[in-house]
């Protein structure tokens, strides 16, 4: 049984009166511990799919099954509880955190909300999470805006794994980082996946990164699936027009070898 099974997912937005399909009849599955990449040009619907899968927005049609149950049927308390298993890392780690927050508070929130550890034990859990993502424990009291972009994205990953999820959606999570930092974050993600069998829905417009980290890839074009399959096979020999254009635009495809 798949970890996530999305079928016939559709989302329309109204632009100047007439509806435009941001996501048009998209179906895919993700297996436990697998990385599925969503690639495609800007505006092809990648972020909309991420938001639909996370129930940040509601689809116009389609089904989402997560861990064997109908994810779209969940409401209120049940939905909030299930969110522990399905996490997200955003592109801009500065925008993704409350500007007033400290590192400790950002990591404390999921532990508190899901009752994972009593108050007295949470500082220890926070320290363990920081260590797990390769950050110094004394970063905890610092304000989010005081630390570097790479550190911030590590905090975002620590927050995402705090509730022991089975799936993490990463929407352009490494796109805003320097090349060297990007490699380190990708290494960290792959290590997490190996040890804890977390699946990733990995969204990126960078086929070099996709080829390095993804098992399978879906190429999107204007909200529809243009092509999908094994990541290396698709990227090395794209069949669709979008695939060919994306490959032609990618500077060097084997830059990352984590």
């Amino acid at each position, binding site marked *: 049984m798949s970890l996530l099974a999305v079928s016939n997912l559709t989302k329309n937005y109204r632009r100047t009166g007439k509806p435009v399909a941001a996501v048009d009849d998209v179906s895919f599955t993700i297996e436990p511990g697998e990385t599925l990449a969503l690639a495609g040009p800007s505006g092809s619907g990648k972020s909309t799919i991420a*938001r639909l899968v*996370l129930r*940040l927005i509601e689809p116009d049609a389609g089904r989402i099954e997560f861990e064997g149950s109908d994810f779209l049927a969940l409401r209120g308390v049940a939905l*909030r*509880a299930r*969110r*522990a298993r*399905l*996490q*997200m890392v*955003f592109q*801009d780690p500065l*925008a*993704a*955190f*409350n*500007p*007033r927050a400290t590192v400790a508070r950002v990591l404390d*929130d*999921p532990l508190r*909300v*899901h009752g994972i550890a009593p108050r007295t034990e949470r500082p220890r859990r926070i320290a363990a999470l920081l260590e797990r993502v390769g950050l110094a424990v004394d970063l905890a009291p610092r304000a989010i805006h005081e630390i570097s972009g790479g550190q911030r994205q590590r905090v975002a990953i620590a*927050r995402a794994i*705090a*509730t022991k999820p089975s799936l993490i959606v990463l929407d352009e999570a490494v796109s805003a980082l320097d090349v060297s930092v990007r490699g380190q974050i990708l290494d960290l993600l792959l290590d997490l996946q190996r040890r804890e069998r977390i699946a990733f829905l990995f969204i990126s417009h960078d086929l070099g990164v996709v080829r390095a980290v993804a098992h399978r890839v879906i190429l999107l074009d204007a909200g529809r699936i243009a092509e999908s399959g094994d990541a290396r096979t698709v990227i090395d020999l794209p069949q669709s027009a979008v695939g060919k254009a994306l490959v032609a635009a990618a500077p060097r495809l084997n830059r990352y070898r984590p």
Partner: protein
Amino acid sequence: MSRLRRFLHTPEAVAGAILLAVLFAMALSASLLFPGDPQAIAGPALLPPFQDWSLPLGTDRLGRDVLAELFHGARTSLAVGLAAAAAALVIGAVVGTLAGFAGGLVDEVLMRIADAFQTVPGFLLALAFVSVVGPSLGVVVAAIALGTWTGPARIARAEVLSIRERDYVAGARVIGMHPLEIAFREVLPNALPPVLAMSSVIVAAAILTEAALSFLGLGDPNRVTWGGMIAEGRTVLRTAPFLSIVPGIALVLTVLGVYLAGEGIVETTAVRRGLS
């Protein structure tokens, strides 16, 4: 620190701060310098100012010490002004946050209620409220807040509407945080600065409204108020104009002080935000 320095380099702000400091000193020292009932008879009636140094500002129609009344009146003005403004800001921030964050029907209902409050002029609303419920300090505070909360509510709502689309709000939902916690812990504190920027105008308006209510005899009858003193003096305006002029000047200086100091704070924090 540099914010304080910039504040001190703004002459209007410093003038406002000094006026406010004097006012607070008057309010705090009122029962120390003038113990006992300020409404008790202290000397001959209608003694002009600067005649008798035990009654420096003279006495009113009933022989009450004008200076003592002025000090005790500062207390009422400040207490009512600050309490009413605080209540209006809190109600406004909470209602605006709920409306902006929840959207839909909740937003619709709350904003229609705000509309209803706004169609009636704030002073008339306060007047009607006090007339119906009866004058006491708490009622006056509530009455003023009732006519004032809609401004902060609208500003808070507008700010929340933009904040709720930010990634960190989505992030809070993703970790399963309760919507009310998201609204009040994640969104509201970040929506506060423009709301707080209104507070000097709101405090100044609240002080004036309190004075106007007291002038019309709708203030707390057990407390000396500047509005009440002005009304008292009005009956002998020709023969003893100082009885109205003294509390009138106090009122003007207070409102000016609140406004200048408040603008000074907003100005210096805005500059700071612009630089960072």
